[in-house]
């Protein structure tokens, strides 16, 4: 039940579970994935990438059954400030396709979400390609919330041609200014 006190993660679990029940696999990405890992960074968009969508599936009906309604290209709820967006797949970060993710479960609900490492890469991609330093700060928050594969992030950064910016991220992880 989504209401005024529902947090972003509650909305994400409810929507992902509703979609899963009709056969649609949706992965939480972007700033909302960062909120899942940190709790401190607050996004107001619940963005999913749909990685599997069987023909004839009523994803819209599943989301509307939760009380959301379509406004333009996103879903809004009369009792929640969080909006839900379903983005077309495949999930990708820079030139890399995302083929594995973390699946969280709680009390009969399910949530597919970028792994912590991919969540860091996703935020760093915004910094690398748009010079968005607020995303760099979020990447650092996510990196500080638990274990990440720093080597994988470093080699991906090399492939993205962003060695210098990765070094800035790495230095900040070790206490450098940001």
């Amino acid at each position: 039940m989504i209401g005024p006190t529902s947090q972003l993660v509650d909305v994400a679990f409810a929507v992902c579970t509703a979609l899963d029940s009709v056969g649609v696999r949706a992965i939480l990405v972007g700033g909302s994935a960062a909120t899942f890992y940190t709790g401190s960074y607050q996004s107001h968009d619940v963005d999913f990438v749909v990685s599997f969508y069987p023909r004839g599936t009523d994803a819209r009906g599943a989301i509307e059954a939760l009380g959301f309604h379509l406004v333009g290209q996103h879903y809004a709820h009369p009792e929640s400030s969080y909006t839900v967006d379903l983005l077309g797949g495949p999930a990708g970060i820079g030139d890399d396709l995302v083929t594995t993710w973390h699946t969280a479960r709680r009390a009969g609900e399910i949530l597919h979400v970028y792994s912590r490492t991919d969540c860091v890469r996703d935020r760093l991609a915004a910094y690398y390609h748009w010079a968005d330093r607020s995303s760099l700060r979020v990447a650092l928050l996510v990196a500080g919330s638990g274990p990440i594969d720093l080597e994988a992030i470093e080699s991906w950064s090399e492939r993205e041609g962003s060695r210098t910016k990765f070094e800035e991220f790495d230095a900040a992880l070790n206490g450098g200014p940001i």
Partner: protein
Amino acid sequence: MGIALLEETYARELARVLEAPLLSVQRIVDALDREGIVATRLIGRQRRVTLNPRYFARKELEPVLRRLAQGDQRLLDAVGSMRRRPRRKGKPL
């Protein structure tokens, strides 16, 4: 330093980040443009400013500016709180 951190910017954005009067920023950008240190190009009605990729010391200058910026926490905070990544049309702010 602001231009190095933002990579591509415009006078009004720089003025906001630096908390400096727009006219002063425009004058400084003009002076740097004359010296060839920054390059500007008009997109619509907005003059976009970058470090000049053809400036002879560009390769050395950018890391120095980025390093200097690390000592200016107020500037880092101002730039770090700006959203520059795209947002799909129609999404609520």
